[in-house]
């Protein structure tokens, strides 16, 4: 593949794709050797339908479309963008995990890399929450929900069951509300197949920091949405913020705790990390452009979409939605062609037509050209508009088929264990969080990456027999995995801590192959029971501190190493019935 292109577009989301399509319209087949689009995947994901993938209304494959189907002429390169130089319009890309790095130059460079998620500000969020950015996220979230239903149906401990069935969605924007609504729908639909679960046990909670949900749609629709969701049994918190997340719960701003194993995060949008630190102007972390959509200070570099701060022509910034991304892409294409042909550039101007969202159970909310309405019609309209925007006739047909099936058949409750390949995970803990309880079945092995934990062993009455600290670089949890026993101790975080977690299966595979590690872990697993045996009241301190020479049997009965076995037997027989003969090396 050649390394010099007239136009290089980075990113195949709504903005990048719209730009490439417009160039195809302008240049036709010529685009094949003039336009290169680089994207990390070879497919386009229709983000507005991701919540419906979670709710199992649409088959995952049907919300994606191969970019090669959408773009007939432009050249596609499936690779990760590693580095960008705005000055030289040079891009470094990697198409095979570091093994195939290519440098590409462009006359016109379009940055449409979109956004990523950054939640380092909320401790534990990155480690414990599920996200909704990519198709893989949506799939694993759906799989996660079904897995929780399966686990809860077998769980007899009420507290643990509650945590398994409490789903907390963080963020009351479009994706937060749509996701929460879809989860609620899925749980209600699925419940009849899990007879042991009571309706009241299935809880969905939405946490939003603003005064009302769906802030883009105004207060009235926000209130309507909240009321509708609450009517259906959802708990909605407004003016509330998540301060930290751990394995068992999340903590809110007012100090209260929500006991849950399921946190779904829809906040924390941040520009793509590749776009950070370029030699351009930034506004709230996004690359700032002029009204022609060029990165400030550069004639031939364009930035559009979620990763850019684009003026909308009416004194505001374009909001990070598909509705803006598509016209932005088209406009950037027009302007960059004008630059190449030395025509006059046009400033970007776009007024939002309206906004809409579905909130589950055949209800929606819309705000179109100042008219605000809600209910079934709003739901129908939202779905129809999204359907029309979905690229590809075949995909539209597939989605309509999925929706029709959904009317007559229950949702798909297949549980695909997508995490089977995951070898290791990180867990964040707050002080007091329990990693596991004494008596539980061992499921994982842990290494302390940061912080201090405490292992405590109690007797049947809850009296502490002994306790010990586990610090950074130390490990625990191997004993019950190696010996197939229940946990001997309860491990609790003393400070904030981060653990590396190896699931039982991966741990066993690893230590079975790695013999010397196995021996090491075996020894450390023995240490706990041994110390406990020493602590037991059988031995007095006086006896434990008695030198061995005071108790040993002496002198030794010896025989030479070249003596026959018969002699050793005779020697053993001479002394007490159970006694031992030590073989003395010749000459000693």
């Amino acid at each position, binding site marked *: 593949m050649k390394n010099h292109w007239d136009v290089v577009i980075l990113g195949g989301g709504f903005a990048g794709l719209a730009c490439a399509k417009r160039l195809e319209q302008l240049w036709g087949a010529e685009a094949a050797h003039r336009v290169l689009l680089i994207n990390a995947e070879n497919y386009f994901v229709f983000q507005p339908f991701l919540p419906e993938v979670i709710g199992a209304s649409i088959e995952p494959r049907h919300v994606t479309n191969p970019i090669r189907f959408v773009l007939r002429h432009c050249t596609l390169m499936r690779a990760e963008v590693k580095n960008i130089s705005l000055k030289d319009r040079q891009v470094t890309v990697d198409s095979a995990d570091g093994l195939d790095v290519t440098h590409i130059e462009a006359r016109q460079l379009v940055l449409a890399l979109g956004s990523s998620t950054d939640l380092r500000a909320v401790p534990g969020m990155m480690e414990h929450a599920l996200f909704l950015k990519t198709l893989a996220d949506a799939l694993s979230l759906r799989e996660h929900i079904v897995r929780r239903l399966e686990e809860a149906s077998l769980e007899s401990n009420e507290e643990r069951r509650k945590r398994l069935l409490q789903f907390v969605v963080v963020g009351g924007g479009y994706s937060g509300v749509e996701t929460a609504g879809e989860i609620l729908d899925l749980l209600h639909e699925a419940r009849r197949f899990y007879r042991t679960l009571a309706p009241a046990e299935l809880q969905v909670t939405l946490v939003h920091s603003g005064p009302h949900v769906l802030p883009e749609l105004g207060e009235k629709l926000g209130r309507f949405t909240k009321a509708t969701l609450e009517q259906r049994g959802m708990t909605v918190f407004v003016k509330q913020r998540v301060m930290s997340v751990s394995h068992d719960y999340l903590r809110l701003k007012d100090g209260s705790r929500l006991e849950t194993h399921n946190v779904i995060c829809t906040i924390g949008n941040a520009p793509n990390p590749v776009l950070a630190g370029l030699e351009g102007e930034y506004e709230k972390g996004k690359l700032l452009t002029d009204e022609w959509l060029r990165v400030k200070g550069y004639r031939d570099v364009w930035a559009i979409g979620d990763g850019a701060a684009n003026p909308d022509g009416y004194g505001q910034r374009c909001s990070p939605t598909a509705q803006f991304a598509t016209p932005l892409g088209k406009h950037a294409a027009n302007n960059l062609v004008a630059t190449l042909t030395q025509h006059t550039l046009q400033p970007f101007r776009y007024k939002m037509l309206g906004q809409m969202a579905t909130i589950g159970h055949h209800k929606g909310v819309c705000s179109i050209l100042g008219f605000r309405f809600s209910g079934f019609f709003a739901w129908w309209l939202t779905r129809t508009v999204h359907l029309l925007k979905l690229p590809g006739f075949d995909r539209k047909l597939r989605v309509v088929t999925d929706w029709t099936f959904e009317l007559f058949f229950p949702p798909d409750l297949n549980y695909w264990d997508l995490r089977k390949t995951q070898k290791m995970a990180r867990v964040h803990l707050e002080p007091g969080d329990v990693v596991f309880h004494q008596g539980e079945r061992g499921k994982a092995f842990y290494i302390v990456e940061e912080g201090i934990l405490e292992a405590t062993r109690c007797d049947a009455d809850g009296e502490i027999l002994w306790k010990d600290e586990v610090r950074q670089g130390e490990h625990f949890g191997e004993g019950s995995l190696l010996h197939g026993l229940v946990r001997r101790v309860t491990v609790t975080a003393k400070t904030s801590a981060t653990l590396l977690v190896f699931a039982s299966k991966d741990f066993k595979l690893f230590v079975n192959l790695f013999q010397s590690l196995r021996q090491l872990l075996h*020894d450390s697993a*023995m*240490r706990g*029971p*041994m110390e406990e*045996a*020493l602590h037991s009241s*059988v*031995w*007095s301190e*006086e*006896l*434990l*501190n*008695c*030198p*061995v*020479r005071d*108790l*040993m*049997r*002496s*002198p*030794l009965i010896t*025989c*030479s*190493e*070249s*003596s*026959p*076995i*018969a*002699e*050793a*037997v005779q020697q*053993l027989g001479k002394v007490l019935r*159970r006694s*031992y*003969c*030590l*073989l*003395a090396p010749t000459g*000693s």
Partner: protein
Amino acid sequence: MTESDLHRAAGNRQKFSDDVKNVASTEVVSLQSTQVVRDALRLFYMNEVKQAPVLDADGRPVGLLSYLDVALARLQSDKTGP
């Protein structure tokens, strides 16, 4: 050389006329005579053995300590204790 070694020797159909060195354990854990019972119990536990030879400062075997000896000492202290 322990009873277990004899067991193994019989299992391997070794003759009584064979050399002791062919049947005796070679990987032997040991105690220093200056160590205390606490160390001895740890050694027994970690190595899953019931006895170990005791060596003097020069590394020469001077005695043998078994788990039974420790237990007997405990019984003894019960009798003589308060």
